[in-house]
Each structure stands twice: as C-alpha cells, then as structure tokens.
C-alpha cells in the first residue's frame, strides 16, 4: 500500500515536476519568473536551487519565443515543461502551439515528436478582469495533434502532469487559479494517469453532471448537497478534453437519462456543446430530457466583484438547472429525504 497524504493542488504539481526532473535529466523548465521568483503561483518553488539554471530557465516576457524554444528543444530530445503564466497569455504563442507543436509530427512524416508540456492556469473569480480571467481551453481542445488535460484534484494534478511529461506528444495541462490551494489525498510515490479517461467521481442514478477542472469540483459538491434532498447525481469528471472519453460520458447518460454540463467557459461553441452532441449521438434513446448546459455569461468578465460573481457559473446556477431538468421529467425524490 502506498501512503496517502493531504496536500494542495499546488504542492501536487510541484511534487510531480520535482520527481520527473529527478528521474529524467532531459526534463527542463521554461517560463516567466519561474526561477528566482519561484513562479507566479509558486509551483516551481525551490527547483532553481535544486536543479540549477541550466534546467530551470527564466525567460523573457515573450511567449512566442519561449514556447518556440521549447518546441525546438523537444524536437531535439529534451522534455521541456513550459509555464505560461495564465492561459490568456498563451494567445501570443498560438502560432507556435497550433501551427508548429501540433503539426510537426504529422507534417514531417513522424521524423520527430514534440514531447513538450505547457502548464497554464485558466479561470476567473480572482478579480483579474476580462483579459486575465478567461477559459480558453476549448481553443486547444479543438486542435488535433494536441492533448489537453484538466485535472480537478491534487491527486489527478500529480498523476496527469507526470503522464504529460512522459508523453511524446505536446500536452497542454490546464490548471486553475481557484484550485491551487485546494487540498486532497494524494498517494505518495509515482502515479501516472492514463490519457483520455474520464472519471465517475460521484456515482449516482438520477442525473449526470459533467464537469472538468473547477466545474468538476463544484459538481461533486452539488452532488453531495443534493444527495441530502433525495437526488442521486452522478458526476463525470472529464479529466481530459482531448482525447475525450465519450464512452464514459454516454454510459452515465444512459444510466440516468438526464444530463447537465457545467463548464467554466462560455456557452457558445464551448465544451458543453461538444458533450451535449456526444450524448445525443451516443445515448439518444436513453434521454428523457434535452441535455442542459450551465456556462459563463457571454460577456467579457467584469472586474467588479459583484458582477464577476454572477457572470461565472456556480453551484446555485447548477442546482437551478438540475431542478429544472428533474421537474421536466417529473422526478420523484426518494422518500424521507426532503
């Protein structure tokens, strides 16, 4: 039995980086302020001292430059892990990520893989205003040639980052500002996640709620709250946006006949749209109501705290839609629970 301890999401990412750097000399880190300053979110704390400036490289404020450099290093045998301070800044490196990292293996006949990881947090709710609070993961999840992982728990963060570093394809690991300080049990020692596997984090029978990253955490919380009201919610944590585990999603929807997607991004063309399409294709004959989506308001996120709060999807918004879904199917709550 491996020992398990409660650590933060932040610590779990740090532990995975440190373990992989220890295990494999070809693992190097690049990013803004990751060395001397130890990272904007302190994921890389202590690593400069431990592994030296050759392997932990502070870069200029030039996302296109250092992502391009990482691609080149990856093509020549290194395993670079790039930190982009927030996903908002990845737009500057879009050409490198989409037109190069994602294409090189295929376009050059498999002559070289690009075993690179981009770690970057998304998410709003920190009063960082419209340009620093976006959830752009679906932009990358849209692109064949990339893999996009979105861990919601410390244990997943550790196992997925480890798997990402060892994978030969370019992987974007989506972190979340509001998850860094969350704690959870993490097994000691090496854990390697399997790519493209969604998880049923809360089993249930009445409604399927699909989430990822922060929304998977909210969904699990709502499932616990509604269990006390006689509603058995099954939470599916996507874990991986590309590849997407359609089978686990459909299997759950077939079981419950009702599905709601909670997504941090905007509704239109968002992750929820893909999940809803997946469910109607794979579980059509099992649905007793249309698939519903709960997403962020379609506006540039306001700075004002009060406005920011109502613009982001939260537990109450999810509960409201679940209730509507239950009412639309005349759901009867289990006895003695309300």
């Amino acid at each position, binding site marked *: 039995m491996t020992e398990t301890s409660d650590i933060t999401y932040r610590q779990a990412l740090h532990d995975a980086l440190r373990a992989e750097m220890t295990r494999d000399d070809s693992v190097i880190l690049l990013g803004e302020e990751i060395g001397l300053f130890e990272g904007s979110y302190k994921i890389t704390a202590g690593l400069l001292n431990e592994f030296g400036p050759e392997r932990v490289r502070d870069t200029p404020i030039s996302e296109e430059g250092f992502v391009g450099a990482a691609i080149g290093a990856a093509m020549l045998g290194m395993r670079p892990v790039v930190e982009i301070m927030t996903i908002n800044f990845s737009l500057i490196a879009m050409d490198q990520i989409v037109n190069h990292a994602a294409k090189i293996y295929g376009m050059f006949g498999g002559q070289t893989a690009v075993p690179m990881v981009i770690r970057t947090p998304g998410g709003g709710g920190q009063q960082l205003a419209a340009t620093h609070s976006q959830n752009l993961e679906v932009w990358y999840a849209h692109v064949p040639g990339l893999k996009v992982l979105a861990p919601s728990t410390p244990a997943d963060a550790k196992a997925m980052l480890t798997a990402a570093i060892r994978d030969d394809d370019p992987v974007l690991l989506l972190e979340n500002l509001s998850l860094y300080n969350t704690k959870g049990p993490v097994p000691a020692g090496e854990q390697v996640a399997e790519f493209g596997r969604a998880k049923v984090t809360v089993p249930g029978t009445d409604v399927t709620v699909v989430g990822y990253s922060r929304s998977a955490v909210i969904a699990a919380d709502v499932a616990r709250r509604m269990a006390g009201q006689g509603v058995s919610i099954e939470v599916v944590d996507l874990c991986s946006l590309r590849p997407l585990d359609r089978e686990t999603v459909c299997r759950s929807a077939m079981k419950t006949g009702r599905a709601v997607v909670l997504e941090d991004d905007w509704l239109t063309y968002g992750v929820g749209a893909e999940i809803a399409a997946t469910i109607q294709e794979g579980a059509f004959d099992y649905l007793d109501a249309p698939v519903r989506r709960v997403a962020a*308001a379609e506006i540039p996120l306001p700075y004002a705290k009060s406005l920011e709060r109502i613009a982001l999807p939260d537990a109450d918004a999810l509960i409201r839609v679940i209730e509507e879904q239950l009412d639309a199917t005349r759901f009867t709550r289990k006895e003695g629970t309300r």
Partner: protein
Amino acid sequence: MTEVFMPRLSDTMTEGAISQWLKAEGDTIERGDVLAEIETDKAVMDLEAYEAGVLEKILVQPGENVAIGAPIAVIGDGSGTSDVSDAEAPSVEPAPAEQDAPPSEPADDRDEAPAEPETEPAAETEPAEPEPGPVAEQAPSDGRIKATPLVRSLARSHDIDLATVRGTGPGGRIIRADIEALLGGGKPAEPEPAASAAPTAPEPQPAAAAAPTGGAPVATAQDDDERVPLSQIRKVTARRLTEAALVPVFQLTTVLDASRLNELRGEINSRLAEQGIKVSVTDLIVRAVAVALRAHPEVNASFGGDAILRHAHVNVGVAVALEDGLVVPVVKDADRKSVTAIGAEIKDLAARARAGRLKLDEMTGGTFSVSNLGMYGIDAFTAVLNPPEAAILAVGSTVDEAVVVDGEVQVRPRTRLTLTVDHRVLDGAGAAAFLRELTDLLAEPLRILV
C-alpha cells in the same frame, strides 16, 4: 391588450372547441363575464374573462378545435390598436393555459437563444424549460407527438402507441414518468447501458409486454365499412378503458335477495309521492355502497405505486350512458347523504351529463363506482374498473326466481351483484367481506336509512 387562451378545463383535455361566443367583437367586457362556451372532451363549460376591456377580436370561430393555450380572442382597450399580428392564428406555440400558469417560453434575453421553437434555449441562467406541472401541460395541435427519445425507445419495446399517451412534460412532451404510470406504477425496463456508445433496445418487462395499452388491436376499414369518427367523449372512453385494462383485476359475484329492498323502495315512493320524491334501486345501492365503504376503508382506496391510498371521503361514481359514450358523475360524500338526497343528486347529475353540462369537479374524485344495467334487462355482467378507483360494482336486473328458503321452494326477486377489484389493492377475502357487508345491508335495507 390581453390575449384570451383556450383554457384547460379538464385533466384529460388536450384541445377544445368554441361552442358559441356569447360576446361579439366590440362588446365591452367586465371581469368575470362569460365570453364563450367551450366544448371539451367531456362537457360544455363557460369561459370567463379575467380582464375587463373590449372584445376586439375573435380568433377562433364556433366549431373550430384548437389546442389548449392557443389564443382564441383579444381583449383590448377598444381603440382597436391591439397588435394581433402574432395572435391571429391559433398557434402550436405553447402558451399559458391559465392566468397563473408559468410561461411556456423562456424569457429570451440572450442573443444565443435559438430561433427554432423546438430547440432548447441556450442561456444558462434562464429556465430553458417551462415549469412542468399539470397546469402547464398541453399537447401539440399539429398532430405531432412530442416524446423524449427514451420514451420512444420504451414505446417501441413495449409496443405502446404514443398517440394514446398523455404527455405531462413541458409543452405536453411525453416523458418516462408517463410511460411508467401507464405500465401500472412499475418502472419500465431500464435500458441497460451498453458497452459501446451504440444503444441497444431495452428488453420489455414480461408483465408490461403481456398488457400493452396502445397495442390493443385496431381494425382497418374494409370496402363498405362506415367510418364513424370518434367523438371527444368516445376518444376519452377508449383511452381510459384501455388504460384500465392494464390493471390486474378479479371479479366476485353474489346474488342479492331483493325482497326487502323492493318493499322498502315501494314504501318510500308511495309515502313520499306527494312530495314528488322517488327513489330508484340505484339510489339505494349507492347509499348502501357508501355505508359499506365507510365500514371498509380498505376498499375505499387506490393503488399509489409504493403505497395504498385510503381515501378520506367516500365519493361514489354512477355510470351514465350517453348517446356517444359514458360518463361517471360522482356523488361526493355519499356516506353522509340520505337516500333521497342521493337520489335527487343522481337525477340532476345524469340529466346534466346527457346535456353535456357537467362540471369537471362533478366527474372527478370518485373513490368507487356503480354501474347498473338492470333496466336494460341484463342479468349479470362485469364492469371495467374506473382507475384509480379500486373497485366497481356491476348491478344486474332484479328477476323473480325460484329459490329454496327453509326447505321450501319460493319465488324471490333476486339481483346479481358483481364486484370488479384491483388486485393490487385488495385480495379475494377482503373484497368478499365488503361484498358480504353490502348484500347484508341491501337484504335488510333499513340500516341504510339511519
């Protein structure tokens, strides 16, 4: 301006026709004025105005059938400026069935809301579905059946004709709960999650497969067959009786010696003739049934899925044959009414039933029914259950028969009573005890007068 919608006037109504307009365009309307008479599946009922104003436009002419919630008239301020462009034709768009019904269309304040009415609205914080509930439900008027994919899949495997199923989901959509109700409270066979994303057809449950509802055989017309289109009431009768066929029942028959009953009836009628009071065998039986039900609460009950519901009130329905169908008006609290009061009530109810003028609450809430075909010369018969009631009594004609009494052959008037019982609620012995009590009461009927 205010649109007036086709109201929902009975729990089985899906559409209604304007029988006649009592107000004309241009008339001033007070709140509570009767605007029109509406013909529902069971009765003709008054439509009252909720708002004062001027009846600016009549959108549906007498005789036209429209779905619940369809606009039928416009009340305005009399200026004639009401914009009726979106209200001209009865539309299949869901609309509030009653004043307090929640809106069927979500508030559309986001630009991503879809243009297609069938598509679910996209906004995440706005209710995308109308609040469901008995009031909001309605059926589409274009003949298209709204049913969820799950329901369609269950209908295929259980051989259910969805045209016979009433949808209680948003906009009259047929949802799983409706099929479950149809299959007798039990859950239909759950589709087994398949290993692949390709769903497989769910297996029908044996019980449900043996008793399909809409799957009841239907004939197709041959060359010279005359086609008599179903009246509203015949449609409802057909559907309700098909539903009733799903309930597992058994019948018990007993023979009543009606000597004392006849004597009592004769005595009452001769003594009270001057007051114009006349009681029938049915009146006496309804009264006796009510007294017996009060003593046997287990019969005055319904199957409630996970419980048996024993009803607080004893409400006895009396089957009344109409030209084109059958209605069962209900004598409420029959155990607290005298035989003459019951008689007067049945007479009134039956007369209004034949005129199509029963109110909805006079046809609902029954806890037991009585069907008497004695006057048609029927010796004995079994009646079909009137769900959710647990039992129904079939009364045959009273016939003089030779019977052995105390070792001698005598001629006695005898009546055959047959009780049809929902076996989920009652077993043979319990039902027999009730029937025994009832025949004892009718054999010595003085007890039902006190």
